[in-house]
């Protein structure tokens, strides 16, 4: 498993990147660029939490796929429904 030190480091990274998200908003970037950066940061944080705090990295890959299927279903609904309006 992972040492407490690594957990602490990950916690620090999460903490800082949450702050960065808000700073990006005030950095005066164009809306969609800021949108992209902020969502990528959220996704990266989510991956860190899932991989280490939920230790998916150290589990059989099937659990990751399981969550991935749920994610694909949710995204399919969101994207296809939104597209149907355009």
């Amino acid at each position: 498993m992972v040492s407490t030190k690594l957990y602490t480091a990950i916690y620090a990274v999460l903490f800082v990147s949450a702050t960065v998200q808000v700073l990006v908003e005030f950095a005066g970037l164009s809306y969609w660029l800021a949108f992209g950066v902020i969502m990528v940061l959220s996704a990266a944080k989510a991956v860190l939490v899932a991989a280490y705090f939920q230790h998916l990295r150290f589990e059989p890959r099937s659990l990751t796929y399981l969550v991935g299927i749920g994610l694909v279903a949710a995204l399919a609904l969101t994207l296809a429904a939104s597209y149907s309006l355009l």
Partner: protein
Amino acid sequence: MTDASPGGDAAADGGHEVARGGDDHDFPGTGSIKRWFVTTNHKDVGILYIVTSLFFLVLGGVLAWLMRIQLLAPRALGEGILAPVAYNQAVSAHGLLMVFWFLSPFAFGFANYVVPLQLGAKDLAFPRLNALSYWLYLFSGILFGVSFFQGGTFSGGWTMYAPLNVPTFTPDVGASTAVLALVLFVASVTVSSVNFLTTMHRMRAEGLTLRNVPLFSWTILLTAWMMLFAFAALLAALLVLSSDRLLGTTYFAMESPAGALLWTHLFWFFGHPEVYIVFFPALGVMAEVFQTFPGRRIVGRKWFILAMVLVAIQSFAVWMHHMFLTSINLQVKTLFMITTIGISLPFDLMVFALIYTMLKGKIRFTTPFLFVFGALLLFIIGGITGVFLGAVVLDYEFRGTYWVVAHFHYVMVGGVTALVGGLYYWFPKMTGRMYDEFLGKLHFAVYFVGFNLLYFPLFVAWETPRRVFDYAPELAPWHQLATVGGFVLGLSFLIMFYNLFKSAFVGDPAPDNPWEYATTAEWAVSSPPPLENFDGTPTYRDGHLEFIDDGEVAPSEERSGGPTGAAVSDGGVTASATRAVTADAELPTAEATEVEGPSHASIWPFVLSAGAFLVLLGLSPLQDAAFPEGMVGAAYATTAVAGGVVTLGSLVAMGLEPFHGPVFEEGEAWPFAGIDNGKVGMWIFLASDVVLFGGFLGAYVFTRVAFGWTGWEPIPSDPIPGLVNTYILLTSSFTVVLALVAAEKKHKWGLVTSLGATFVLGIGFLVNKGLEWQHLFHEGLWLSTNVRASTFFLTTGLHAAHVIAGLVVALYLTARAWRGAYLEDSRSVEYFGLYWHFVDIVWLFLFPLFYIL
């Protein structure tokens, strides 16, 4: 199922019932009423499901009769036996009851009874959760029944289209109650899906790889997967609807951008998989019976399974064919027409496989075979008429007519036909007695004539508009024919009830296998099977079913309680085998690792469900987040509070109750080998929760796109409180990690402190959020201000509800840890952490979407 003393079974199972005045001793026989309230055995639960679902069949059927009587002639308002709103209620309740409270539970009655037997398991992975599924189902049905007496039940059709589904158009309290009843039903389905998926992936007998699993079990496996994701989307839809009705949010209100369209997306994303969810088990029965009575193994078995897997996946990509007449764009309609026509192809393969199997065999026309053969014919008609509806241009003409009604009744009731065949097929196994073959065949003849007399004229009279009781007078003869057919079909069930009821007591005793050429494992045990299914451990090691004496394998594994005695080849698998003993519930009371025989009795699933029933009943009259004035409102509020106390109390009681799930011998566990049942169950649940939040976020994104993405400002003008909450949640996630580390190091106070810190941080999160909301309320913003405010309050509110649920568990864990728990076995802490981190992850997306972007 056995009247033979359960204690004897436990003794035969290794004689370790001595340790405790265990549940086995308290487990009453089948003749006792008490047995049916406390049982957690899968066979008992299966029978409860079947009997209850048949009750709802009768209820839904009587409503259908009322409609058919009304339709004997085209009526003006006020004519006929039903008042206009009563007719609408009958139509809506008939649809909801038949689809939700009859069809799926009827199929899952068989699933409960048969699947563990076919897998070689002693029970489902989480027996108490299985009982919980049943009781939630029963109480959700009762809640639906209550809705008729609260001014009238829901009257907007079973599809509950917006904006008819909001109080502006359906103001009765009963309409809200019907929606809440569905919420409770979905809770039952979710618990059941998690349980079946864990069981079917983790608890197959040695050598029983997925490829070799019997076809009925295959259909249930795929059904459970579809249920897990589809019902999560329905839950999102229903929670949003409940909030619109009870709290006053405005997602589906007329003035919200694309509110009506949002409902159709959420509903049909669930609704189309639902078609296969109700049909697949019927297909499984067909596959079993089509093998047994022609005496042939199914032709192209591998391809049959592959076709089903394809359908299960593709079922999530066809939903917009229910929306061809809405304002969705032409490109997406075309795309969904293609996927829809495409999904009919795997079905062609399955139909031909069944026909060819039949042709290659030597058919014996027993009652079960007649029913599934009839079902195949009906399904072919239903399927072909559905292809018409899948074509965009034809649907422009057919939509909202009786063509649709006739089509889906051929499909759905075609499925029922197969399931009735399944009831005759497994009746000897369940009761130990044979039914009367002549009466069975008579039932089939009357049923089949009645069915076609009822539904075929509806194709002819297709120009009748759906859901109304007025139609062109020249169509009246067809409707009269259909009404006659309705009564023939309904009354044919009297023959079945008489036959089965009588035979259950005085029928000829059934042998283990009354059907020559039936090959699945349920026929290898006695009729009915013993309480724990098998006398030995079933194995398919040598390519066929065998039973190994329990003495050879079980004791060394079971008594070890730790890694010492379990030093069999692969550590991972064996460890999970010993652990699985206690792995009931999402958060097992893990310290009870001393091993005993499996338990079969718990009253708490019943009490918990009753509590949930009271909560929802109590909340039903809410409008704009307020109870009605006066005594009535006070009575409802009291009911809700009392229900809450009962629910919470029974959850704690269930957590503390010593209960042992089935002893799990080493077997096939792809793809979750080496992971605890409890952990697999938790992750499966979380995957469905991903879809639940996906539905909420999808609703938000969709509404915002309809509104104009960049014209939409975040509700909180200041992101800082949100950022502070992000910090708090991240920190609480970290403390949960520390708690697990402390537990693994057997560091009691580290564990207590970390868990306590998590609890305090969670409270801090809620307080901060409360202050923020308070501030927004003072600014004049409320849930009903506009849809922008609605999405903000409801989505973050759902998240806060998850936090509160987590805090209840955190408090429980802290208290137990204080008394020294979790140091030997930290799994409860770990599973709680999985949930808590998930809630954290959700917030990582809510924060930017609702506060900064």
